[in-house]
């Protein structure tokens, strides 16, 4: 069975992170010269300066609020309160519900997105008539903003004049309209459906791109060995695009977690706070004027995602990636 590394070598490709560096690379790596350092610094400088000034500086300056009594209702006393804001977050009776919702939101969105995206990619790999047109039509949800998707699906799921209820009734699947966004049981399902609609595209694009880099010879060899479809899928396709899969899932989890726009546009976290995830909860806290607690939530989000990223990469045994992304 070919491992990803051997298949890549077989296909005459370099491994992206330099697992099989060409001879030239090794030489340059050992040799440290001021000139080389300058080249690196000069090429990285623009990116580093932009991100440092407009992203990292404001974030670091802003995170001090998390440790202060920073309430907009009274800013005359913004005393240092240590970890009090964090304790308040955990003590909030809604916190448990918010966490559960967040998990449902992320897992419920990502798993179907991955499965459908994968299927689409497999089917789109082979040319058929109008494939280009089809691709263009199904890829567009990625270009729609989260806020707009919220609006779009709020209109669709409108219980009185929405198309969803009307179509379900016409199909005879339901007798009376379902108050989709007004009932806690269905509201979370509705926002997850909207998110699936949006997110499948990214998986489909990424996986399709990765699939096209699998050399045909591998499949021919597998066919000669008499491998069936399932075996080919699990022994060639998936191992070969494993890195893409792992990193796409990781990115999507991070992005989905940090995607309050859609929920805000659709339900505003309601009814009765039943569709809040951590990031919408943070926005709600901001609206109450408690910037201290909202910042504490923000820092918890970063910490949580960071831990997740590390464990995820370790668990998927993408050592190479762990090395590449977070250092060994």
């Amino acid at each position, binding site marked *: 069975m070919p491992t990803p590394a051997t298949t890549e070598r077989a296909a005459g490709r*370099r491994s*992206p*992170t330099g697992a099989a560096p060409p001879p*030239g690379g090794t030489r340059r*790596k050992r040799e440290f010269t001021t000139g080389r350092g300058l080249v*690196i610094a000069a090429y*990285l400088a623009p990116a*580093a300066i*932009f*991100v440092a000034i*407009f*992203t990292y*500086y*404001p974030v670091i300056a*802003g995170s001090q*609020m998390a440790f202060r009594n920073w309430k907009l209702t009274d800013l005359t006393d913004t005393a240092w309160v240590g970890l009090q804001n964090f304790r308040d977050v955990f003590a909030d009776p809604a916190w448990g519900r918010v966490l559960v919702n967040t998990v449902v939101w992320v897992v419920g969105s990502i798993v179907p997105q991955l499965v459908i995206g994968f299927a689409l990619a497999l089917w789109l790999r*082979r040319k058929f008539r109008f494939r*280009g047109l089809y*691709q*263009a*039509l*199904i*890829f*567009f949800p990625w*270009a729609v*903003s989260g*806020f707009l998707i919220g*609006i*779009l*699906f709020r*209109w669709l799921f409108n219980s009185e004049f929405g*198309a969803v209820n009307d179509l379900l009734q016409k199909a005879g699947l339901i007798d009376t309209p379902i108050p989709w966004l007004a009932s806690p049981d269905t509201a979370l399902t509705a926002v997850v459906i909207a998110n699936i*609609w949006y997110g499948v595209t990214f998986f489909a*694009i990424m996986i399709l*791109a*990765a699939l*096209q*880099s699998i050399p045909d010879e591998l*499949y*021919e060899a597998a066919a000669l060995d008499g491998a069936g479809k399932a075996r080919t*899928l699990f022994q060639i*396709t998936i191992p070969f695009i494993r*890195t893409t899969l792992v*990193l796409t899932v990781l990115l999507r989890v*991070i*992005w989905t977690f*940090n995607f309050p726009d859609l929920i805000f546009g659709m339900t505003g976290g309601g009814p009765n706070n039943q569709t809040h995830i951590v*990031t919408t909860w943070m*926005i709600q806290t901001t609206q109450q004027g408690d910037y201290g607690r909202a910042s504490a939530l*923000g*820092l918890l*989000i970063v910490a949580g995602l*960071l831990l997740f*990223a590390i464990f995820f990469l370790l668990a998927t045994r993408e050592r190479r*990636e762990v*090395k*590449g*992304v*977070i*250092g060994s």
Partner: protein
Amino acid sequence: MIGKETAAGRTTKFVFLGLWLLFTVFPLYWIAVTSIKAPGDVFAWPIAYWPETFSLENYRGLFDKADFGIYLANSLVISTLAAAAATVISMLSGYVLARFEFRTKSALLMAALVTQMIPAFIALGPLYLLMTDLNLVDNRFGLVLVYIAVCIPFCTVMLRGFFANIPEALEEAAMIDGLSRFGALFRVLLPVMRPGIVAAFIFNFVNCWNELFLSVTLMNSDANKTIPTALNGFISSFNIDWGSMSAAAVLTILPTMVLFAFASRHIVQGLTAGAVKG
């Protein structure tokens, strides 16, 4: 997969593809139909899936009530400039991160990943103060700068993947021929990577085009508003004007949709070169 397709397999495939197409396109169809209904018909019962009377009233109202044309132009210019600049800057950083080994490299990659985890809210206040000090509040150029910073991390990681997959021999040959490293990057690698660069640009463009919170915070005057801010304004405290809102939504989606349609082949091709491969 590449093996032979059975008839049953083909049927399953096309049924699935067809269903998915319906699911994907229906919301857009529904909003488009809503937008061309006469304002009084939007809430007519029973629901009309095809408007009884066509009306462009909602669109006319949009351009009368608000300077939608200005917002479109702002969004177009700001997104194009920011996306282009971020792509160029990320090519430099992505190139170095793909070609060199150095001590701070993994820390830098980690820093890029962390930017994706930060909720925008934490940074909003200090960013506003910073932009005030720089005299860049309510300034389109200022928003471009901020958007460039927003796009760089993901774009860098993406382009790094492409560079890693291009044989080094290519630019080494060029350098032996007397080109500088910079020259080699732009004269030799660029043409090879064109689809990847197009893909990176489109991802950046879409991100900027849809950005709301930074735009609301940093822009004041009507002449500087972008589309998402204007769209948000339609959910005014008055009422949900579904007719105008649908028209605004269609106008917002259209440019990016056209861009995606034209570029979908480029995107896939470009990414095939090895996007997000680390």
